[in-house]
């Protein structure tokens, strides 16, 4: 079977599965609004807010979802679901007809739990990376330090494309087929992110221990890197920018070095007829 037939068959299957269309309401999106979103008039729309709070003072015929903020229902009424991720839901004389769901409220309120959780997670990841992918990580860290600026621009571009792909797959969950795409994107993004951040840890550890002549065990370098990472993360906006730049460049390095292996992607060449 050659490549063209393969693509055609896959496309037809995908379109066939996607056809059962979904009845839609209109929807309104707020991305990082400068101040709290306040709803005073009656709306027949879904509301989706990223990165700030929302105050509902009237009746809304739809769902209200907030990511990284709190929902205040002050004398209003929400006929659909009310969802908050990383924030809380406050009902003051208001009612919600559908489900009320607040996920990760604790992490939004108290930074310490987030710190604890991320430290434990990264310690596990360091163990895994050290035992099974140490050489790849070293190779990647070398590549990362070698060609920083070019890799940063490439990583930034990749980040944007991957984010758009992730959003599309997330929206496509409604059609059923999107669940597979979403799981795929989640897997790709998670593996890229973990590998890139571990590379940054090794890079930090190398900077700290670079001047010592005695060789330091790699695992110690990773742990010191984690410490530096958490310290930088604590400084609010500066830390965010620094880590964003570093992780973008590291992502570029990961994609360039193909997870530090320098082997072709998937090794499918023969199958693809190249």
């Amino acid at each position, binding site marked *: 079977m050659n490549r063209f037939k393969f693509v055609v068959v896959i496309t037809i299957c995908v379109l066939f599965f996607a056809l059962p269309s979904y009845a839609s309401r209109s*929807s309104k999106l707020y991305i990082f609004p400068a101040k709290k979103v306040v709803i005073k008039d009656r709306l027949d729309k879904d509301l989706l807010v990223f990165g700030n709070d929302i105050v509902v003072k009237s009746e809304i015929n739809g769902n209200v979802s907030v990511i990284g903020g709190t929902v205040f229902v002050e004398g209003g009424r929400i006929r659909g679901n009310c969802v908050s991720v990383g924030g809380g839901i406050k009902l003051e004389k208001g009612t919600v007809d559908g489900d009320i769901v607040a996920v990760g409220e604790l992490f939004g309120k108290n930074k310490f739990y987030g710190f604890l959780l991320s430290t434990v997670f990264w310690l596990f990841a360091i163990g895994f990376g050290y035992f099974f992918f140490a050489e790849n990580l070293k190779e990647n860290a070398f590549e990362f330090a070698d060609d920083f600026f070019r890799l940063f621009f490439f990583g930034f571009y990749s980040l944007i494309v991957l984010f758009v792909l992730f959003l599309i797959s997330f929206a496509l969950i409604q059609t059923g087929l999107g669940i597979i795409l979403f799981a795929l994107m989640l897997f790709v993004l998670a593996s890229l992110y973990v590998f890139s951040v571990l590379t940054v840890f090794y890079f930090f550890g190398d900077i700290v221990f670079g001047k010592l002549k005695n060789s330091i065990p790699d695992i110690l370098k990773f742990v010191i890197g984690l410490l530096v990472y958490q310290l930088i993360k604590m400084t609010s906006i500066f830390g965010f920018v620094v880590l964003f730049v570093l992780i973008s460049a590291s992502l570029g390095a990961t994609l360039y070095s193909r997870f530090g292996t320098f082997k072709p992607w998937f090794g499918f060449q023969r199958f693809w007829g190249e």
Partner: protein
Amino acid sequence: MKKECRLLFDYLQDNLAERVKSAFEYHLEDCERCSSEVKKFREIEKGLDSIPKVKVPETFSFEVIEKIRERKRKIAGWYYYFAVSLSALVFFFFFVGVVGVKRVYANALAFARTLDLFLSSVVTAVATISSSLYNTFYVGRFTSVILILLFGVLGYGFFRSLKVFSKAGK
């Protein structure tokens, strides 16, 4: 075995003086054993020559050592995770022994209920947010088809750009 037969090894290595060599060649015609030995040796030599010569990179031994070390580390990793899970298991049984099966069961049930609640709320959150997101992209009846095609085209373009970037030198 004649006296000359002792010279066989030196003859094969080409260590004999010209005169002795010609004398030995004369001896070869008589001695069946020596001549068959020489024939065998020449064949082996020919076979060895026909094997292609491989040039080993200078870092070869270093790389081999690194590979061995890596392999050892991987095995150590498996042992480490095995030890951690085993000690967790032992600790769990110890915990059950101290606290009592009934209480552990009740706690596990409560934990499972909480987990179920948490998972169902996560599912609700994902469904709600994704439906809102889908609605923001909504353009008509064929939105899902358009989105899937967009996903495919974007993904393929990204993959191609990855390949181009990887091939371009510094």
